[in-house]
């Protein structure tokens, strides 16, 4: 027995000395951490380069590079397709330089160099694989012309080396860009950005300049049939660079100078800027021509829709995904009451408009009642259902004698005042402008009213709002009704603008678009709705020729926007604080997520 006790003596020694080192999970975890600290210096470059390379290959395979190559930024020098890839390479090189843990300038540069090389390398790999196997069986856009573009028309062998070289070069450029002083960086971004913008928006700028005699000279100097002229691009670069340099040096002093004006002067400034804004708004369709006026009217209709949904979602926090239903109801009421095709009534636009809005309000209340008790996502899916029900009913053969079925209703008369007919887009623009101003004014006044405050209380916390004596039923129904009224107004104008209505114009995508635009603009913010419509409806319309990639870019932009700037482009002050408050003030992240608007 004694011996056994003695035998047990070395056991603890064994236990402490060997087991923890080799078998304990803690030991290996520790080793792992050590490993991570001693990671190779080029790791970030390889990782970022890999992501960038995959993005570049994807851009090529989905056909964006090729489609964009048909447009030149600078005529016969740089095409949009190449610019796209260059942007990816430079951005990723910059990111590699920024993200790496290295501090030595040389190694930072090496990292961005490697990331550029990787991007070039993966594209080269695509070219090599593409020349060996026919990828077109699966990827429809892997066409010979893509490889030609990627290899700069030099054939596979030389092209691969060119690609590698171009990638590496753009990586180094990005690294150098990272080291350049902030002022130089800003000037460079502004001027290069303006060249790209001028190239991309050529179809917008050229006809606009052409309308005005003296400005037409600019056209001659700046544009060719496809892209900017070389001297035009250089001139623009110098001009913008000089201006942004000047602004960076002097801008703040000008701004403080303006702020230092006496109150009377400031009021004068405000009034003059407002007047200028009004004059610009009034003159826009005359200046911009037919196509752009059309774009403006579409943006305007979305502003109307957005202002309406802003009340429901932005103010009252009721997530409504079936908002298109009211748009459809407005449009169809207008159509049924005015169109001679059906022959029930033949009211004029102005005669039918009150009915359209009234129908909107009524349907807002009727569809609002069943969902009063639902919250959050249940509300979202139920309203989505309403939107679909309305569309399907309108489309069906069952209601065809009354609503026209799949063929829709035609011959809806245009609106007119006195002898002035709102016929084409440049005229309808004024109708929509008046509508927008009216609705913006109403929602601005509503926001600060007792009702508006009640809406916001409901948004923040339904139960507390009810405890404070807010009548939830009336408040919510008023939100639905007001939103529906604005939407119906938009629908009525839409019907008269197109002179016809089809069920396919009222799909769920419109609801989703409107929701996206108010969130991108900044939820609850009235100027935000306008900014959001311009960004999400106007810009894509301008890039119509890339229609295939419009929604792709739109989707990517939405994701990027939500990741980087979730409060929107023009946020309401409260919401900005809510989203960024967690960083500055020490609050629990949970308290931020708890104050979500769609309770």
């Amino acid at each position, binding site marked *: 027995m004694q011996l056994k006790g003695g035998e047990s003596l070395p056991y603890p020694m064994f236990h402490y000395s060997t087991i923890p080192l080799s078998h304990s999970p803690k030991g290996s975890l520790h080793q792992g951490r050590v490993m991570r600290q001693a990671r190779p210096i080029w790791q970030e470059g390889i990782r970022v380069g890999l992501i960038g390379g995959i993005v570049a290959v994807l851009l090529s395979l989905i056909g964006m590079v090729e489609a964009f190559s048909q447009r030149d930024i600078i005529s016969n020098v740089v095409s949009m397709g190449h610019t796209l890839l260059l942007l990816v390479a430079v951005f990723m090189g910059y990111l590699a330089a920024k993200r790496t843990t290295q501090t030595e300038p040389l190694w930072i540069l090496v990292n961005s160099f490697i990331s550029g090389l990787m991007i070039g390398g993966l594209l080269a790999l695509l070219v090599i694989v593409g020349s060996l196997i026919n990828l077109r069986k699966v990827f429809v856009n892997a066409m010979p012309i893509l490889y030609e573009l990627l290899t700069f028309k030099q054939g596979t062998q030389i092209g691969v080396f060119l690609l590698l070289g171009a990638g590496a070069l753009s990586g180094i450029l990005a690294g150098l860009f990272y080291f350049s002083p902030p002022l130089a960086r800003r000037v460079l971004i502004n001027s290069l950005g303006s060249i790209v913008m001028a190239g991309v928006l050529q179809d917008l700028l050229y006809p606009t300049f052409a309308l005005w005699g003296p400005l037409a000279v600019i056209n001659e100097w700046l544009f060719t049939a496809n892209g900017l002229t070389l001297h035009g691009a250089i001139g623009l670069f110098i001009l913008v660079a000089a201006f942004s340099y000047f602004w960076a040096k002097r801008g703040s002093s000008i701004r403080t100078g303006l702020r230092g004006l006496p109150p009377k002067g400031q009021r004068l400034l405000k009034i003059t800027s407002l007047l200028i804004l009004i004059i610009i708004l009034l003159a826009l369709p005359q200046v911009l021509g037919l196509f752009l006026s059309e774009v403006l009217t579409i943006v305007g209709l979305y502003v109307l829709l957005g202002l309406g949904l802003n009340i429901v979602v932005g103010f009252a926090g009721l997530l409504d995904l079936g908002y298109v239903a009211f748009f459809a109801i407005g449009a169809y009421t207008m159509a049924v009451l005015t169109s001679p095709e059906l022959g029930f009534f033949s009211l004029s636009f102005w005669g039918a408009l009150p009915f359209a809005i009234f129908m909107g309000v009524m349907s807002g209340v009727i569809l609002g009642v*069943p969902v009063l008790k639902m919250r959050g996502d*249940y509300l979202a899916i139920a309203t989505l*259902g309403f939107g679909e029900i309305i569309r399907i009913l309108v489309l*069906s*053969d069952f209601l065809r004698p009354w609503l026209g079925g799949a063929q829709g209703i035609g011959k809806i008369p245009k609106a007119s005042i006195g002898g002035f007919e709102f016929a084409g887009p440049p005229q309808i623009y004024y109708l929509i402008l008046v509508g927008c101003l009216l609705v913006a004014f109403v929602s601005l006044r509503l926001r600060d009213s007792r009702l508006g405050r009640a809406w916001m209380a409901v948004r923040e916390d339904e139960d507390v709002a009810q405890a404070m004596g807010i009548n939830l039923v009336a408040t919510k129904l008023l939100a639905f009704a007001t939103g529906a009224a604005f939407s119906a107004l938009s629908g009525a104008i839409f019907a008269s603008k197109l002179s016809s209505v089809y069920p396919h114009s009222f799909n769920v995508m419109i609801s989703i678009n409107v*929701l996206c635009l108010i969130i991108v603009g900044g939820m609850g913010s009235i100027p935000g709705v306008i900014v959001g419509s311009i960004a999400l409806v106007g810009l894509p319309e301008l890039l119509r020729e890339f229609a295939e990639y419009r929604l792709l870019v*739109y989707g990517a932009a*939405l994701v990027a926007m939500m990741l980087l700037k979730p409060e929107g482009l023009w946020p309401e002050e409260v919401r900005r604080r809510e989203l960024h408050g967690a960083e500055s003030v020490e609050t629990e992240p949970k308290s931020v*997520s708890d104050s979500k608007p769609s309770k």
Partner: protein
Amino acid sequence: MLKRWRERITPTDIAMWLIGGIILAVIIWGSAATLTTGRYTLYHWFDFLIFGLAQGSIYALIAMGYTLVYGVLRMINFAHSEVFMSGPYTAYYVAAAFYSSGFLDRQPILCLVIIFLVSMATSTLIAFLLERVAYRPLRTAPRLIPLITAIGASFFLQYTFRGLYGSGFQAYPVVKMMEGQIVFGEFRILRIQAVVIVAAALLLAALYSFVQRTRVGKAIRAVSEDKEASLLMGINIDRMIVTTFIIGGMAAGAAGVLYALMFKQVHFFMGFIPGIKAFTAAVLGGIGNIPGAMLGGIFLGLVESIGPSLFLDGLGIVAPYQLKDAIAFIMLVLVLIFRPTGILGERLATKKA
């Protein structure tokens, strides 16, 4: 007692019950009228039933993805319909290659297994990337923001796949083994529908037992119950969320192949309608509730296939089948009026609302 009861009833309640009552009355009246005309025989109803079951079980599989993700993240993963689309669309190229080489006819089972695996792998990859790139940075953001991100990701994925594979419809190759009918005495079942029902039932059972029986499943349930408490219990929340997306992706990939085999075509936009339907199904059953999603999916499938003929035909409505989606959504509204948290209710109803 009665007085107290009367005081608690508000005009809204009355209005809601009225709306619900009217819908119910129309349904009952329509059904009675249809059944008395006797336009449809028992065999017709049986066909509707089987088709509804097949479609419903596909909805149920997709709805699993919605409901699991909703459970752990409290967000509508709007891009799940694209997860559903990506699998069968990618697997189409494998299937087409098998078909043209004649391998599909020689080894149909092996080919189908490979097609399923490819589809599930693609969907899983997409779901994984979606979580990693788009949703993970937004864990603490207010609720609408992940929703918009999901909508954006949905657009992005749709049009990326359109760019990659083209914008046309692709006809899925026909598996000869699955053509024809199985005859049970008087009743006949299309073989493909039987395959879909059996495969979906197996998958659903596997999923359910995975979530209910395994350690990982338990951890997922714990995360959806209470994130902080499960963190304290030593559960790696990030890993569980990723696992949830992966499971949802696998279910969606499998559902996608079943859908493609049943309807015999794929398209970059094919995910949209089934996605919305499956989400509706998840809400119908009580979102966040796994048996609820299955039940909701099958209920929705049945309503869609039987509903138009049963409810509307007797009312003399022209072309009732056009209204099947409207019926599905009216059912949803009806269920939500009487049971605002879905058929089976939410597990965590109070906390989440």
